[in-house]
């Protein structure tokens, strides 16, 4: 068999392939050749074949059949074999394959090999793909190597230790003694990897963190040497001595100084020195400054230092290099929470970044701008942000719109401004706003009572031209439905009133209904709005009736249901229509969202489970109409129809549980329970609706004689199936001549709904003598106990 081709040949051949298919063909041919060569157990060319296999694996082709071959290579004595074998192991094997455990013994032997390069290979491989079992077995060896004097091995051992700690955190203590001398090295390689090891240990364990705090002075010294030392050709990168090590040390200092005053103080000087001495003309210097700024922000630094840091960031913002600006914006975002005022100073630069061409910078600038909006600058910022919303890419629009809504809500200087802003957002980015923006806006509009006419006029004008943006159309339809009368009457304080006729309004709503662009939800809104207008408009009721009846046979089930119910309203329940379609009252935003809230709806109470309902959920006009029709069918009261179920503040919940708070005044006739000797006792009844077996009786005792009755005590007894609770009376004296009464409340629990009977006993003093009487009350009206 001819000798297999070398790796370079393979690469050249593959590169000549012009199409993907050609490349695949070549690779498959080569794979077949390699496979047959493996089967022949050919020792001489094995490493060449595995190298080729690794290349093909890197291009994305499967190479699992080479795993065992890698193991064989590792076990061989030749260095070239071992090298490829370990590389293959790193690339092809990991803990998912069982084969890797076979390597453990090989690695163990190689860790004790006489040649440092072999040891180095073994350390690299273990550090790259060692599984937890392997790490546990070999941690001892690694630790031994961490203490050698050979710096080549020491640095590799340190990195291997990092991996071991990541896989098996319990072994961290084992490496602790070896770390004592790590920082005393001169060799930058070892220093760097030791700092990495220390960083990893500190991040994982707070005890280690406390232990290593004493190293802060040493780290400060090393950093100082790096900065102060002259040119060192070995470590120089564009004029700065070993910037990578500097960055690492700064990061470790950050972790050590966090939340610790002493360490932070020890670092203050060096941080100031780095911040001022580093050259900023090249990217390297800026990288170090960036890390310094991050460190200053994170530790408990003194305020002068913090101001220095933010000024550095401000300088970054003005730099021409995009990378630096991006980095500055990112860090400012992190610090805006803590050092708000300092960041405000750079607000104009940040706002300018909104106009940058680069997508990443724009995104950062947008987030930062939202964080910087406050009561003072809200108008100016909003103008910029709205302009940004107009011109930005679609991927930003949703976030920008929600950000604007939030900021407007928190800081709106006036209601009109707020509504204008939201309208502007809806017209420019209408299709990107989130779903909960519509209910929020509607709630806002209902709350600003004086702006109703203005709002509805603006909304009408907005959708007159274009009704494709769904959220805008939804809000507009809702408002037109609610405030159509204001629109038609032509009164508007804020703006010049436009003359609109009822027909024009109905035209626009009908076109929304018909249009193909309208979503089903939008159509629902429009239909309900048309229906509401039937009570607000005077001359077009017939037209409305016609529209509603047409949609009674719509294909859309939701629309059909609504239309049918509205039709029913016209036909059978016309007397209720005005009450039902009355203007919505002001909705309150709930601030607490408990798992259940008791809802008060003018006499009816029903517990409602509120999970994630947006504040005013009275935005489901259709379901509301359904609820209302149910309510009306079920009970025999006609109160004014309530609004959303969620509009009650949570504090009312406690009171509502009180039975007396939710009485249903349905006029059960009152009775005279006792009338003798001038003493008359009347019973009035109330039924609680939270508990239908409870009857609340209020007794009123009056005295028609010429003398007062004193020490009046009322006692009552009921049959065994009932329970009675007597509350305290208003007083114990009944004045003469019916000039006053004693009232007392009795609660009767009647779970079995049996006929109420009561025996009462009265004791009082009258005309100087003690009077006592017993009586039975049988004339309870049926409504009081049924």
């Amino acid at each position: 068999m001819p000798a297999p081709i070398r790796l370079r040949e393979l690469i050249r051949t593959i590169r000549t392939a012009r199409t993907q298919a050609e490349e695949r063909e070549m690779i498959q041919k080569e794979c077949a050749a390699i496979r047959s060569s493996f089967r022949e157990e050919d020792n001489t060319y094995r490493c060449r074949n595995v190298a080729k296999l690794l290349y093909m694996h890197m291009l994305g082709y499967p190479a699992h059949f080479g795993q065992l071959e890698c193991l064989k290579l590792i076990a061989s004595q030749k260095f070239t074999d071992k090298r490829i074998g370990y590389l293959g192991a790193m690339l092809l094997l990991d803990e998912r394959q069982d084969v890797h455990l076979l390597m453990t013994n090989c690695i163990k032997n190689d860790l004790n090999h006489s040649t440092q390069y072999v040891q180095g290979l073994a350390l690299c491989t273990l550090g790259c793909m060692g599984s937890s079992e392997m790490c546990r077995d070999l941690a001892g060896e690694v630790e031994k190597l961490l203490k050698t004097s050979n710096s080549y091995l020491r640095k590799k051992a340190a990195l291997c230790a990092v991996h071991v700690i990541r896989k098996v955190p319990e072994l961290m203590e084992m490496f602790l003694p070896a770390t004592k001398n790590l920082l005393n090295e001169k060799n930058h390689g070892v220093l760097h990897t030791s700092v990495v090891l220390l960083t990893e240990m500190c991040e994982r364990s707070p005890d280690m963190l406390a232990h290593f705090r004493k190293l802060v002075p040493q780290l400060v010294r090393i950093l100082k040497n790096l900065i102060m030392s002259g040119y060192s050709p070995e470590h120089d990168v564009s004029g700065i001595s070993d910037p990578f090590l500097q960055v690492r040390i700064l990061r470790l200092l950050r972790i050590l100084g966090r939340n610790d005053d002493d360490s932070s103080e020890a670092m203050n000087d060096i941080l100031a020195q780095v911040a001022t001495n580093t050259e900023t003309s090249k990217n390297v210097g800026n990288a170090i400054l960036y890390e310094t700024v991050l460190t200053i922000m994170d530790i408990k630094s003194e305020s002068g230092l913090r101001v220095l840091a933010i000024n550095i960031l401000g300088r970054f913002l003005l730099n021409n290099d995009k990378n630096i600006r991006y980095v500055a914006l990112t860090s400012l975002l992190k610090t805006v929470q803590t050092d708000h005022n300092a960041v405000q100073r750079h607000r104009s630069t940040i706002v300018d970044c909104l106009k940058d061409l680069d997508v990443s910078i724009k995104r950062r600038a947008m987030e930062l701008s939202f964080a910087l909006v406050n009561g003072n600058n809200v108008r100016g910022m909003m103008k910029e942000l709205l302009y940004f919303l107009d011109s930005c890419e679609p991927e930003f629009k949703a976030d920008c719109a929600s950000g604007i809504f939030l900021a407007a809500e928190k800081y709106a200087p006036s209601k009109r401004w707020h509504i204008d802003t939201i309208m502007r957002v809806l017209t420019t980015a209408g299709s990107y706003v989130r779903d909960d923006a519509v209910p929020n806006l509607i709630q806002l509009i209902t709350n600003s009572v004086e702006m109703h006419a203005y709002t509805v006029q603006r909304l009408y004008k907005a959708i007159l031209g274009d009704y494709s943006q769904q959220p805008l159309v939804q809000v507009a339809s809702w408002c037109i439905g609610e405030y159509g009368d204001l629109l038609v009457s032509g009164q508007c304080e804020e703006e010049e009133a436009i003359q609109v006729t009822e027909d024009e309004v109905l035209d626009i709503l009908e076109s929304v209904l018909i249009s193909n662009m309208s979503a089903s939800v939008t159509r629902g809104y429009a239909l309900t709005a048309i229906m509401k207008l039937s009570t607000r408009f005077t001359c077009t009721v017939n037209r409305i009736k016609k529209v509603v009846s047409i949609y009674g046979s719509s294909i859309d089930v939701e629309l059909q249901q609504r239309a049918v119910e509205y039709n029913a309203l016209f036909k059978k329940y016309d007397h209720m229509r005005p009450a039902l379609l009355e203007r919505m009252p002001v909705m309150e935003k709930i601030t607490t969202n408990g798992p259940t809230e008791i809802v008060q709806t003018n006499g009816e109470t029903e517990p409602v489970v509120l999970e994630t309902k947006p504040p005013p959920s009275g935005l489901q006009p259709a379901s509301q109409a359904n609820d209302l029709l149910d309510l009306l069918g079920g009970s025999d009261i006609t109160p004014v129809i309530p609004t959303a179920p969620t509009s009650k503040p949570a504090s009312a919940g406690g009171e509502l549980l009180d039975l007396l708070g939710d009485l249903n005044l349905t006029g059960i006739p009152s009775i005279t329970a006792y009338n003798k000797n001038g003493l008359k006792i009347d019973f009035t009844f109330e039924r609680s609706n939270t508990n239908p077996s409870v009857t609340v009786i209020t007794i009123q005792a009056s005295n028609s004689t010429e003398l007062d009755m004193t020490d009046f005590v009322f006692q009552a007894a009921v049959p065994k199936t009932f329970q009675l609770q007597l509350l305290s009376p208003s007083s114990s004296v009944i004045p003469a001549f019916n000039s006053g009464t004693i009232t007392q409340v009795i609660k009767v629990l009647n779970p079995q709904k049996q006929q109420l009977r009561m025996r009462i006993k009265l004791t009082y003093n009258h005309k100087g003598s003690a009077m006592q009487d017993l009586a039975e009350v049988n004339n309870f009206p049926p409504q009081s106990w049924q």
Partner: protein
Amino acid sequence: MIKFFLMVNKQGQTRLSKYYEHVEINKRTMLEAEVIKNCLSRSKDQCSFIEYKDFKLVYRQYAALFVVVGINETENEMAVYELIHNFVEVLDKYFSRV
């Protein structure tokens, strides 16, 4: 933490790849294709850091070759940018005429 290190040419062919986290082999090609698409669509005056899924890409272009490094948020982006250049310089010194 560095997630991966790629060298991809303008046509999307991977010249070098090293993953520091396990990624399925078929996902790798997809990842590489997407990454190179992102990098190619950037113009010269845009910054070298792209946010991609839940990590960041730091890329640098050398003639027809893109060196892309994927990092997570604990890394200093600019230091990684320098690292890429350092790496290229090392290759240059070692192999000459890179």
